């Protein structure tokens, strides 16, 4: 540092000290590192997942306001056993994607509308059996006596139970679900008919 950068007392000029605010800058990778550290300690939730999860009650409420009976749209009570229906049933597990683009205000309204329309459609076609939103808390129990308890964040936001002729038909229905359009993924699992065993 040259003497020009100091005042008459030899102290570095204020502007030179303040100029040190220009650097160093945090490495870009630090942001993700911090987010991961916070998530692993349960201090942070994924914003994207929260948004998707927060939509479930909105969808249900909006559906109700449009004349649906909540008990028949998202009810456990009217579920028919696979043994008593002619068509097999498939569980659609809706996973949220942390990397999907965030929905803004107007986009969110559109998404809710699309969900309602989709639910309405599946119900009219007699495909929809039931659906539920899952709570935030995810606790995994393992070990012979369930001694291992692990609380973690799950990407699973909810599920639908859908009637379809076969897996291909179930896939075709799933492909129409707006969940995919907004970056989420759907895991499709056939419900096994154990009534004849």
């Amino acid at each position, binding site marked *: *540092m040259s*003497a020009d*950068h*100091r005042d008459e*007392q*030899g*102290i*570095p000029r*204020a502007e*030179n*000290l*303040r100029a*040190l*605010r220009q*650097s*160093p*800058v*945090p*490495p870009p990778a*630090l*942001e993700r*590192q*911090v*987010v991961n*550290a*916070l*998530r692993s*300690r349960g*201090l*942070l*939730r*994924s*914003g*994207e997942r*929260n948004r998707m999860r927060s939509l479930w009650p909105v969808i249900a409420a909006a559906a109700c306001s449009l004349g649906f009976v909540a008990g028949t749209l998202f009810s456990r009570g009217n579920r028919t056993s696979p043994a008593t229906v002619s068509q097999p049933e498939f569980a659609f597990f809706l996973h949220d994607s942390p990397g999907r683009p*965030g929905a803004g205000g107007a986009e969110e309204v559109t998404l809710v509308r699309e969900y309602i329309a989709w639910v309405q459609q599946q119900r009219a076609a007699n495909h929809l059996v039931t659906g539920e939103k899952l709570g935030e808390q995810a606790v995994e129990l393992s070990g012979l006596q369930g001694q291992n308890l692990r609380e973690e964040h799950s990407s699973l936001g909810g599920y639908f139970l859908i009637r379809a002729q076969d897996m291909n038909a179930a896939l075709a229905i799933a492909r129409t679900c707006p969940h995919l359009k907004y970056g989420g993924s759907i895991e499709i699992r056939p419900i096994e008919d154990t009534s004849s065993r």
Partner: protein
Amino acid sequence: VSNSSPTDERACALQFLRDRDESTFLDLYRRFTPMLYRVAYRMAPQAAAEIVQDTWVRALQKLPEFRWESRLSTWLVGIAINRSREEIRRNRAESMSDEVEPIARAALVPDHLDLEVAIAQLAEGYREILLLHDVEGYTHEEIAQALKIEPATSRSQLARARAVLRELLGKNEVRK
């Protein structure tokens, strides 16, 4: 000091406490991390990223208890300084004794002593005050809140820090 107003800081932090949402956190992160990183880097460069990470972890753990008696940035920098002190002590214990360190430090002083290196030569306590006041722009009252000391202590420490800095820079001219 962060350019955001205390009201903005508070609104953002309270929003975060309500939703624990990643995007709300990133708003806080991007406001304060550049300052936290600079301070951490100048206190313990080898562990700056780790210090910043731990600062956020501790801050989010304690945020619900934060009483808003200071600005959020003041509270955060206090956590970062404490974490830096731990790092400095750990390194000291691992590498060399207190007696050896100043000698080693002096030997490492390069011929061309710039301001950064001179600051790095300051004793930990002086460096903290000089960085917070002269580089980051905190007031003595804010430094007192962050470091849990009296404002008068901050003032006297700064005067000493500046005197040592002047000496270090003068020493360089002699060496040159």
